[in-house]
């Protein structure tokens, strides 16, 4: 699914990723943990194609195709989804209208007709039930005046609607209370299949109690310095990151 090899990237000439390798196969859930400033969000943004970063070396392949030259929307059309840590507010555009636009633009890019309104409504109904989202919520302006938890839940709702191949959840657990966390995690688990993959970026082990990863990676100073199974997350929770830093010395 995703193959990253020797990725180097910088912003404003400050080097952030320094030779990162990562391979994610269909059907897998990977967690990326690491201290602040390690480059976790940078990695998410670079996979999604944010232009602020300069990729100086390395390759990013999605299903065997180099995507590093593609515009963010083209990557989205190819099945990349990034759940934002800070989703943007768009007054005057309802959640429903926004997601309709997103879906139909994606279909348009694939040479398909707009999704028939009936199918769209059915899908919206199903996915909002899955994420325990109130209908009234869907007619509100996108993210405007949403609580932190509502924003995150709305991100996962969009993910459910767009059915991406590769979903990257960037600190989706931050700002969520325990109930919202459970709902969001349940949603992600239900959307998981053998054909798609999920990368969970998080500071805390908490989310991984609900979304059980197949692999846990520690990102430190622009590189993945340690990988393991779900038990690594528990170890990190108990011991912090210092022991890893010391191992590296």
């Amino acid at each position, binding site marked *: 699914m995703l193959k990253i090899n020797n990725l180097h990237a910088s912003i404003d000439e400050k080097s952030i990723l320094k030779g990162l390798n990562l391979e994610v196969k269909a059907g897998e859930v990977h967690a990326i943990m690491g201290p602040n400033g390690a480059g976790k969000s940078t990695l998410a943004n670079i996979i*999604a*194609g*944010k*232009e*602020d970063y300069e990729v100086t070396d390395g390759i990013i392949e999605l299903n065997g195709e180099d995507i590093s030259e593609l*515009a*963010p*929307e083209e*990557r*989205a*059309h190819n099945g*990349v*989804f*990034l759940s*934002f840590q800070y*989703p*943007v*507010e*768009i*007054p*005057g*555009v309802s959640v429903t*209208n*926004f*997601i*309709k*636009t*997103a*879906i*139909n*633009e*994606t279909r348009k*890019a694939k040479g398909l007709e*707009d999704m028939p309104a009936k199918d769209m409504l059915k899908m919206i109904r199903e996915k909002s039930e899955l994420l325990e989202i109130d209908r009234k919520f869907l007619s509100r*302006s996108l993210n405007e005046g949403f609580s932190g938890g509502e924003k995150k839940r709305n991100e996962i709702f*969009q993910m459910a609607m*767009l059915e991406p191949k590769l979903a990257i959840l960037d600190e989706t657990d931050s700002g969520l209370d325990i109930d919202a966390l459970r709902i969001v995690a349940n949603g992600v688990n239900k959307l998981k299949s053998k054909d798609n993959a999920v990368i969970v970026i998080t500071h805390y082990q908490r989310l991984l109690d609900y979304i059980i990863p197949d692999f846990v990676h520690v990102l430190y100073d622009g590189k993945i310095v340690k990988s393991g199974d779900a038990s690594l997350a528990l170890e990190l929770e108990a011991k912090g990151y210092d022991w890893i830093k010391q191992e590296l010395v």
Partner: protein
Amino acid sequence: MELKEKILSSYVAFENGIDINSDVHEIRTQALETFEKLGFPTKKLEAWKYTSLNSVLKQDYSIFTNKGNAVEMADVKQYFIHDIDTYKVVFIDGKYSSFLSQTTHDTIDVCLMSSALNKAKYKPVIENYFNKVAKQDNLTSLNTAFATEGTYIHIPRNVEVEKPIQIINFTTGSEAATLVQPRNLIVVEENAHVQIIERNQSLTSNAVLSNIVTEVFADRNATVDYYKIQNDDENASLVDNTFVDQKSNSVVSVHTFSFGGNITRNNLNFYQNGEHIDSILKGITIIEGKQHVDHHTLVHHIEPNCESHQDYKGIFDDRSTGVFNGKVIVNKEAQKTNAYQQNNNVLISDKATINAKPQLEIFADDVKCSHGCTIGQLDTDALFYMQQRGIPIKEGKALLMYAFANTVLESVKIPEVKSRITKLIANKLGVNIGFDL
């Protein structure tokens, strides 16, 4: 011959066609003197520092258009809000078109200014209101000097007009360059309510200059919602002089949507002659090319306990230029005034310009006056968010601009006007997204 000379020398001919022994004509000739003295505004005047009419005034305008072109409804239907029932007062090259209009004298008067100026039964209203709130400045005086035709609306007390009134001025290019000067008078009595939609539309690429004066009188408890749609041909220029006189507890809102034209100048003036008045001035400007839109607003808080709300959004592309000059005067007596002014601008291109100037003159000490003015670019993080969801950059920008202008749009009270404006915005931005933007 310069336009000013041409105008002055044509006055005798103008007088041939009208009753020169009326009180109104007395007002006209005084206005002509004022115009003769002041001439056209130049950039030397503070109020015209950023807007030059030079290129517009160079045209060889016909002062009176006699040749009227016929206009078929099918050709102009798109300029009407046609999905709801409305009264319509329509002019073609300054001449009333009974064919396209739907006026009334049933309880309310929605008719012609020429009738109001000439018929005896309207005399008391004309005496009380005509040219009473209009400023005696250069272009208003020019309009007054030739004031003969336009829209006359009179809503008696306690009447809530059940459908909006559309005022539309078409120009057809029957002359190489056309000068039109509609004169509107709108009198809304106590506790009455009216909604007005105004549009000026050139149907030609010939030069057009419209110098319009509208006087609005809102008596106690009256409500007036006024929508101005400015989306004209690139050779059509507009000077819109609107003066609003408000009495206690009245609420008047004017929304100005400026999406095109050559040079557009809006002089929008509110005078609060009473207490507990609310004045609402809102606008969305979206222009490109070499277009120029200038909003000069004035809210004069004369008495205590009143409010004013201004919210102007501007989006400027290419080499377009914008001006926002928002003046708020709070008299010493106008305690407990709450005056709010917001002006936000987005420059899409490096070559676009906006001159923004809030001007507050506050003489009272117990007031709340706030103003905020921003000039910026589109938020690239927000754009990335859209793109990440599969929305291409052009459509993403359109959504962001729509979101930016939304605070103004959401206060539009006529749904059909709101959807028309959103369609115009979508057209303007060249997008067709999955819903009515």
